[in-house]
C-alpha cells in the first residue's frame, strides 16, 4: 500500500479514537440521568413522551419485565414494517407507484430492520416507496439501534449495582438513547452529507439524456438514464450511526447519491464505528473505572487493525495469476494497482478495505465496494470479523454487550488459573452466568453453521448460487454469517431474494438477535443481584495489557475453532488455488 494509504488509515483511527472520550462521557451522562446541555431543548419533549405513553420514568424494572418490554416493543416494530411494505401501494409518498412487496421479502426485511441487521434482499430504489423507506425502515434504524443501547446499559447496570433487583427502565433508556444521542448525531451527519451532495428529496426519479450514448448487453442503443431520488441523506446518516447498514439505494454507499465525495466517505466511515467505540468509554464511566472501558476498546482496536492489515494487504497484492500474466499490479501514481474489481475508483483500495473491515467489525453491513469481488483472503476478513460474533466494535450496544460476554468467559478461564472463583468487576461469575454466556456464544455459531449446511445441500439453497467451486460455498457461508450475526452485508453472487433465502435468513436474524438479548438481560439481572467483591491483590485485574491479550485470545480462538473447517472449504482453499 502507498504512504498515502497508510496515512488515510492512520487519520481515520486517530479521529475515531479522539472522539471516544467526549462522546462516551456524554452518553454516560445521558444514561445516568445527568444534565447534558440539551435538556432545555429536549427535556419537554422527553417528558411529553413519558406522559403520552404512560411511562413512569422513576419506576425501574427487573430483568424479566425489561426483557418483556424489549421483545414486545420489537414485535410491534416488526409488524409495522411488515404491514407498511405490504400496503405501500395504497399509501401516499409513492411517486414511482411501487406495488406491495412480496410476503417473503416483507417478512425478511421486517426482521432484518427490527434486528439491526439490515440485510437487504431487495433493491431499495425499485422496491420501497418513500413512505416505506422513511416510516418503516428509517424508524427502525433508530429504534433497533436504541434497543441495542438499552440492552447494553441494562447489562452495565447489572455489573455496577450491588444486591439490586432492577436494571433500569427500558422505556426511559429507549427514549433517552433516541432523543439525546441518535437524533442529534443523525441530524448533524445528515446535514453534513447533504452538503456533500447526498440527495434529500421527495421528487420522483429523473430521466436524463446520456451525454455519451452506450449499448446494453443485448446491443440495444441506450440514450437516457433514470436518476433515482428520495429522502436519502436522513436515512443514510442513521444507517451509518446506528450500525444498521440498509442502503437507500441498491448498491448502498457505493452509489454516488449516497456517498458522493471522499469527505462524505470519511464521515460515513467514521459514523460506523463512532458510537460502538465511544460506548466503551461510557461503560468504563458507568462502572466507575474508565480503565475497564479502555481495555475493552484496546482489545477491539487491536483485532480490527490486525484484520484490516490482512484485507488491505490481500487487496493491494491483488490476484497473483494476473500478475503472473505480466500485468503490472503495483500501485503507482498512475494506477491503484492490486485488485480493483468491485471497487469504486473514487475510493480506491484503501478506503474500500477500510470500509469493508469497519462495516463487518461493527455490525453495520453497508458497503462502498462489493465484498464478493475481493480476493479470497480479502473476502475472508469481513467474513471472519462477523464470525467472531460481531464483538469487534460490533453493533451499537450489541457489540459491546457481546464483548462483555466474551470478557466474562475470559475472566472465567483466567480466574480459575489464578485460583479464585472468577470475578468480573467485583461480580462472581458462576454457573448461571456461564450457562447464559455459553448460550450467547453458541447461538450465532449454530445459526450460521446449520443454516449454511441446510442451504448447500438443498435444491432451494443451491439454485441461486451463481459462482462455482469454493467461491459459491463462500457466498452461502457469508450470507448466513451476515444474518446469523446481524450484520447485513452481502457477498454478491448469491441470489437471495427468493422464498428459501428470505425465510432461512429471516429465521437466522431473528433468533440471533433476540435469543442473545434474552440471555444477556438474564445475566444482567443475575449480576445485579450479586454482592460486589472488593478487589485485592488476589483479584485478577481486568484493565491490564495481559487481560487485553487474553480477551483477544478468547475471541479469536472461539471464532477460529468454530469456523476453521468451514473457512477451509471456502476462502482458504480458494486462496491456495490462486497461489498454485
Amino acid at each position, binding site marked *: 500500500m502507498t504512504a498515502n494509504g497508510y496515512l488515510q488509515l492512520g487519520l481515520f483511527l486517530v479521529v475515531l479514537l479522539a472522539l471516544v472520550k467526549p462522546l462516551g462521557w456524554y452518553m454516560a451522562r445521558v444514561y445516568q440521568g445527568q444534565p447534558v446541555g440539551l435538556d432545555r431543548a429536549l427535556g419537554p419533549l422527553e417528558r411529553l413522551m413519558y406522559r403520552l405513553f404512560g411511562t413512569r420514568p422513576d419506576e425501574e424494572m427487573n430483568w424479566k419485565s425489561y426483557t418483556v418490554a424489549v421483545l414486545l416493543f420489537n414485535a410491534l416494530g416488526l409488524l409495522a414494517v411488515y404491514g407498511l411494505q405490504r400496503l405501500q401501494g395504497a399509501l401516499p409518498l409513492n411517486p414511482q407507484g411501487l406495488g406491495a412487496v412480496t410476503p417473503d421479502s416483507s417478512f425478511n426485511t421486517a426482521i432484518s430492520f427490527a434486528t439491526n441487521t439490515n440485510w437487504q434482499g431487495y433493491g431499495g430504489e425499485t422496491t420501497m416507496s418513500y413512505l416505506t423507506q422513511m416510516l418503516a425502515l428509517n424508524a427502525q434504524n433508530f429504534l433497533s439501534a436504541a434497543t441495542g443501547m438499552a440492552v447494553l446499559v441494562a447489562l452495565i447496570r447489572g455489573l455496577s449495582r450491588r444486591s439490586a433487583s432492577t436494571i433500569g427502565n427500558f422505556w426511559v433508556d429507549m427514549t433517552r438513547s433516541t432523543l439525546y444521542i441518535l437524533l442529534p448525531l443523525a441530524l448533524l451527519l445528515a446535514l453534513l452529507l447533504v452538503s456533500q451532495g447526498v440527495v434529500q428529496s421527495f421528487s420522483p426519479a429523473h430521466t436524463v439524456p446520456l451525454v455519451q450514448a452506450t449499448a446494453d448487453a443485448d446491443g440495444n442503443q441506450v440514450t437516457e438514464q433514470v436518476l433515482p431520488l428520495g429522502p436519502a441523506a436522513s436515512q443514510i446518516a442513521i444507517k451509518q450511526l446506528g450500525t444498521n447498514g440498509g442502503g437507500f439505494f441498491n448498491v448502498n454507499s457505493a452509489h454516488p447519491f449516497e456517498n458522493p465525495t471522499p469527505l462524505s466517505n470519511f464521515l460515513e466511515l467514521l459514523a460506523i464505528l463512532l458510537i460502538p467505540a465511544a460506548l466503551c468509554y461510557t461503560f468504563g464511566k458507568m462502572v466507575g473505572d474508565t480503565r475497564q472501558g479502555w481495555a475493552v476498546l484496546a482489545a477491539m482496536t487491536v483485532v480490527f487493525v490486525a484484520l484490516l492489515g490482512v484485507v488491505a494487504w490481500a487487496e493491494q497484492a491483488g490476484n497473483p495469476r494476473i500478475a503472473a500474466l505480466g500485468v503490472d499490479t503495483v500501485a503507482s501514481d498512475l494506477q491503484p494497482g492490486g485488485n480493483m474489481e468491485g471497487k469504486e475508483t473514487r475510493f480506491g483500495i484503501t478506503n474500500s478495505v477500510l470500509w469493508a473491515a469497519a462495516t463487518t467489525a461493527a455490525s453495520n453491513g453497508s458497503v462502498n465496494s462489493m465484498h464478493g469481488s475481493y480476493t479470497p483472503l480479502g473476502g475472508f476478513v469481513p467474513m471472519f470479523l462477523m464470525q467472531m460474533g460481531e464483538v469487534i466494535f460490533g453493533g451499537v450496544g450489541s457489540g459491546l454487550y457481546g464483548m462483555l460476554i466474551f470478557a466474562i*468467559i475470559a475472566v*472465567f*478461564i*483466567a*480466574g*480459575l*488459573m*489464578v*485460583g*479464585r*472463583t472468577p470475578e468480573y468487576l*467485583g461480580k462472581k461469575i*458462576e*454457573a448461571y*452466568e*456461564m*450457562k447464559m*454466556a*455459553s448460550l450467547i*456464544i*453458541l447461538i450465532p*455459531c*449454530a445459526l450460521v*453453521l*446449520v443454516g*449454511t*449446511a*441446510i442451504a*448447500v*445441500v438443498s435444491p432451494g439453497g*443451491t439454485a441461486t448460487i451463481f459462482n*462455482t*467451486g*469454493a467461491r*459459491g*460455498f463462500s457466498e452461502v457461508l457469508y450470507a448466513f454469517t451476515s444474518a446469523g450475526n446481524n450484520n447485513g452485508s452481502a457477498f454478491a453472487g448469491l441470489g437471495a431474494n427468493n422464498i428459501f433465502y428470505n425465510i432461512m435468513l429471516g429465521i437466522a436474524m431473528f433468533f440471533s438477535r433476540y435469543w442473545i438479548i434474552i440471555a444477556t438481560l438474564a445475566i444482567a439481572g443475575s449480576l445485579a443481584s450479586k454482592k460486589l*467483591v*472488593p478487589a*485485592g*491483590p*488476589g483479584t*485478577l*485485574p481486568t484493565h491490564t495489557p*495481559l487481560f487485553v491479550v*487474553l480477551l483477544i*485470545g478468547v475471541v479469536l*480462538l*472461539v471464532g477460529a*475453532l*468454530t*469456523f*476453521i*473447517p*468451514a473457512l*477451509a*472449504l471456502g476462502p*482458504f*482453499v480458494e486462496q*491456495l*488455488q490462486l497461489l498454485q
Partner: protein
Amino acid sequence: MTLQKAQSRPLFEPQIVQRAVLDSFKKLDPRVQVRNPVMFVVFVGAILTTGLWLQALLGQGEAPASFIFAIAVWLWFTVLFANFAEAMAEGRGKAQADTLKKARRDIKAKRLANRDLRLNGDTSTSPISKLQSQITSISSSDLRKGDVVLVEAGDFIPMDGEVLEGVASVDESAITGESAPVIRESGGDRSAVTGGTRVLSDWLVIRITANPGETFLDRMISMVEGAKRQKTPNEIALNILLAGLTIIFLLATVTLLPFSIYSVNAAGQGTPITVTVLVALLVCLIPTTIGGLLSAIGIAGMDRMIQANVIAMSGRAVEAAGDVDVLLLDKTGTITLGNRQATAFIPANGVSEANLADAAQLSSLADETPEGRSIVVLAKEKYNIRERDIHGLGAEFVPFTAQTRMSGVNLNGQQIRKGAAESIDAYVKQQGGTFPTEVRTVVENIARQGGTPLVVADCSKVLGVVQLKDIVKGGMKERFAELRRMGIKTVMITGDNPLTAAAIAAEAGVDDFLAQATPEAKLKLIREYQQGGRLVAMTGDGTNDAPALAQADVAVAMNSGTQAAKEAGNMVDLDSNPTKLIEVVEIGKQLLITRGSLTTFSISNDIAKYFAIIPAAFASTYPQLNQLNVMGLTSPESAIASAVIFNALVIIVLIPLALRGVRYRAVGAAALLQRNLLIYGLGGLIVPFIGIKLIDVLLTLFGLV
C-alpha cells in the same frame, strides 16, 4: 494403619493402579459415562466407529477396515484413559477408606441403664464399681443418640460422644495418625471423643451424640471414598462451559458433512468426508483433556486435604478455601506459642537482678503452669540458678487461689509471692510495706509493650518484676507476608486488651486485630466482612467458637475441640494445628488453578489438531489444502490417527499433574496468570505440533500406516 502413612503413599502405588485399571472398564457403563458430557460424546463416537468397523469387515465400509479399527481402538482408549484417571483418584481415597473402616468394626459397648446418671458430689473412692453394676452389654451398631456408655481402659470407644464423667488418656491414632495419647475429660474443650479410638487408662462415661452411619468416622469414610461427592460450584460452571464448547464443536463437525458433499460436487472430484474422520475430528476438538481429568482433579483435591490431615465436609468447602479474602486467626496457639514466657527480670531499687531471679525461681518451683516453668528456665539460663527440689528445701508451697490471685513459697521465714501488680500491692500493704513507684512505672511499660508483668515480693518488700511475653512463632511474619501477596488479609483475634494486642499484631505482622474479643464480637466481625463481599475463614476449637464457625465461609475446627465446634465447622483438622488454615487455602487455590490451566491447555491444543486433520480430511477434494499440512504428516490416515492417538495419550500423561495439582505460588494474580498462560496456553499451542509429528514419525517408522 494410620492416615500418616497416606502421606508417603506414592502416586502410582501398584495396588491402586491395579484396581484402577479394573475400575476403568467397569466405568464403561453408559449410566456412568452419561454424567460427563464431554466424555460421553467420545463414548458414543467409539461405539459408532466400532459399528462402522464391523460394517467395513462385512465388505461395505466407508474406509479401509484397518483404518476405522485403529480410530475405534484409540477412541476406546481415550474413554478408558479418562476412566483410569478418575479411578486412580478414587483409588487413593478408597485405600484410605479401607484403613478407616477397620477402625469402625462392631464393638461390644457397655450401656448404662440410667441416662441421667450423675456422680456429682459422689465422694466414694470407687464410683466405677457402682457403674459396673448397671452395665448391659450391647453391640455398638445398636447404640442410639443419647445413650450413655461406660468405657474402661483397653476398651474402644463405640461411637462419637461427649464425656460426662471421668478423665482418661485416649489413643486417637486411628483417626489422626498421631501416636501420642490425648487427654479427654468432662466439661471444657476436651470433652469430645470419637468412635473407633481407644481408652488407654482410667475410664469415661460418655453420652453418645451420633446415630450409626452418621458418626465422624462414617462421614470421613464417605468423604475419602468420594461416595457422596457432589460437584462443586466452579466445577459445575466449568462443566457448562465445556458442554457449550462440545456442542459448538459438534455443530462444526456435523455440518462438515454437507459442506463436504457440496464441495465434492463443486470441485468435481474426491469423496465426501467419512463419518470415521468426522468422529475423529470431533473427539480431537472437544475438550477431552480437561473433560477426562475434571473429576479426577476434584477428587484429588479432596485427597490432598486428607493427606494434610484435614477432613473437609464438602468439596464446596475446599473450593471456597481458595476464595478466602480474610483469615481470622486466634492469637494463642496460632500466632504465638501457646503460652507466655518469661523474658526478663527487672529488679526494684536496691535489689540485684540475681536476687530477683533467685526469688522468682523459688516461687515458681512448684508452679507447673507453662508461665511458671518459663521463669525457672529463664533463671537457669541467665544466672545459672539450678532448679532445686522444693521438698528437699523444706519449703511450703502456696498455691494460686482465686481469692489471693498469687502463688508463692514459704521458706526459712521468707514469704515469696508472685502475682499481678494489684494483688502484690494489696499483699505488701497488708504486710506493712509500700509498693515502690519505680516498680509501678516498669509494670506500666511492660503492659504497654504487649507483655504481662508479674511482680515478685518477699513479705513487705517488693523485689521486682518478671516480664512475661507472648512469643510469636517463628516464620509467622513471612507466612503473613505471603498471604498478603495472595490477597488475603489476616486478622488476629485475642482476648487481650487493645494495647497488648496492637503490640503483638505489629510484631507478628498481621494486617488487623480484634482485641478483647468475645464470641459476639467475633460473629459481628465476620458478618461485617461478609457484608462487604469478602469470604472469611477461621479456626476454632471451643464451644464458644461455634457460632462464629457456623457463620464463617471456611471454618476449620480442631479435632481436639468440642463436638459443637466440630459440627459448626465445615472442615476438621485432625492435627489440631491452627496454622493449617494457610495450607487449606493453598489446596483450594490449587484445585481451581489445575482446572483452569488444563482447560486452557485443552482448548489451545485444537489449533494443531486442525492443522493435522483438515488437510487430511479433504485431501481427495481439495489437494491444495495439503499446503496447510505444516507438520508434514505422512498420509491423511496417519495424520488423523496421530491426532487421535495424541489426544488419548495426553490424558495419561497429564494424570500425575491432575492428581498432584498445578503448583500454587504466592504471587499476585496477574503474575500467576501470566505464568500459567505461558505454560498452559502457549505450551498447549506448541506441544501438540511436536507430539502429533512424533507419533506420525513412529507410525511411519513401524510401517503402521
